């Protein structure tokens, strides 16, 4: 499984459970020979006088797979996810999802790839859950014919019906996390990047998240989940990796 001149590792393809992406399974948005996520030779150094946080990371996610990356605090998991999401650029290396780069076809890329950052940020405190979801449905440019129904379906799928008209700043941390997760899955992305998604979630919240991941995998999408080493989720993953000294090590 490992290889490459830089001794970095590569997650090789497993038997895809669905038709290849080139069949147009993702609303005709997908280019041929595309993978849900492909990171090649990713380098990132935050300061010149420090060792690189990512030192030639190669990673490829395949259709219908779940991948977990662990690592100590500050190992670079969040940086890797941010690069994969297209939020920040690597110093070197190539990022692609479904055949698109985060900057050459940014709108398409962000329709396909969704990212849940760690922490509790990213919400408009004074908007209700429904208005929050409506807003992000607008930003995701979801088709007008399904937009409103998608918002309501998401409210139900994430057990937010009772909270739908409640303002976010009046909710508990766990409830807010559920809203953040709902926002991530709302546009029905094909690649989902989760950074410590279980933060503040109760058991019910974790079950709701599991169901959302199952739906993603069922439709041929891919999941990348990062959390600290000692915090491996109970999920069964297709691949487990450790990010250590800027490189991925297979577990």
């Amino acid at each position, binding site marked *: 499984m490992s290889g490459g001149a830089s001794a970095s590792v590569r997650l090789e393809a497993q038997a895809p459970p669905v038709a290849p992406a080139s069949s147009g399974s993702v609303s005709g948005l997908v280019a041929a020979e595309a993978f849900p996520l492909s990171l090649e030779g990713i380098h990132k150094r935050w300061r010149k006088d420090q060792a690189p946080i990512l030192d030639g990371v190669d990673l490829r996610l395949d259709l219908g797979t779940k991948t977990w990356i662990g690592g100590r605090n500050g190992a670079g998991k969040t940086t890797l996810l*941010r690069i994969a999401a297209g939020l*920040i650029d690597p110093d070197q290396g190539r990022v692609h999802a479904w055949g698109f780069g985060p900057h050459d076809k940014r709108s398409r890329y*962000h329709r396909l790839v969704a990212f849940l950052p760690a922490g509790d940020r990213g919400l408009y405190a*004074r908007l209700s859950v429904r208005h929050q979801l409506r807003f992000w449905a607008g*930003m995701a*440019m979801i088709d007008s014919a399904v937009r409103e129904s998608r918002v309501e379906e998401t409210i139900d799928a994430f057990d937010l019906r009772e909270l739908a008209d409640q303002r976010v700043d009046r909710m508990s941390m766990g409830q807010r996390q559920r809203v953040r997760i709902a926002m991530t899955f709302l546009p029905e992305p094909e690649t989902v990047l989760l950074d410590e998604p279980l933060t503040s979630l109760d058991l019910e919240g974790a079950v709701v998240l599991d169901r959302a991941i199952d739906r993603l995998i069922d439709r041929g999408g891919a999941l990348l989940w990062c959390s600290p080493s000692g915090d491996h989720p109970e999920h069964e993953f297709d691949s487990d990796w450790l990010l250590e000294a800027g490189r991925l090590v297979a577990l």
Partner: protein
Amino acid sequence: MSELRGSAHAFREVLARDLRVYLSYRSRLASQALTSIFSLTLFYYVSQLVHVSGFDSPGAYFGFVIVGIALVGVLYSCFSVADTVRQELIAGTFERLVLSPFGPVRSVIAMAVFPLIYAFAMATLTLAVGWAVFDLQLHWQTVPLAIPAMALALLAFLPFGLAFAALTVVMKQGNVGTSWVIALISIVGGLYFPITLLPEWVQTAAKFQPFTPATEMLRHLLVNSPQATSALVTIAKVALFAAVLLPVSIWALRRAIREGQRRGTIIEY
């Protein structure tokens, strides 16, 4: 869904979000309306008390300054987009906008719309109160033309707000000099007094910004103030500023965001 329709909807969603957040602060409208009315009252009595050279009557100066007061609100609204970006950076919503298909540049432009509509409404309220309570002499024949003129002026002012939003993305500070820039514009733009009172070199410098001609144009249409140049030349000047500055400011904003992504500072706040 076509890109255009999707963008239009996203634009409306930003507007709806800003309205909802605004309405969630229940006393804000009353507070801002009162501030505007107090300011109006203050300048009414100042105009009664002090003879300002170049004005035939206290009413003429009051008409002059009331348009200036209305435009100060518009200026603040233009620059408020930088502060909104700062709040989005702190809340972590800006990075979500960066990752959205609608994108951060269009989002920031959309964020400017609600404050501008609001400032337009407050300016209308200011003029209406001035007319109803303080006997402001509006030039009704040309008042309707002030609406498209104001829209043009906004297009010329907005680039300054977008440029400061770009600075905020880079510097991570919401008030990167906006207060003193607004104060400076108030002086060289002739919002409170005619720029003919200023030194010659300031008058020359004032020609290189859109605020003075836009203010002149609006004053002429609203209260029939005399114009130094023909209306057509003034409109052309404002339109030229808008045509040049708007693409430049959008480019600066795009560049600031990309640079933040390249250096990784887009996640900082």
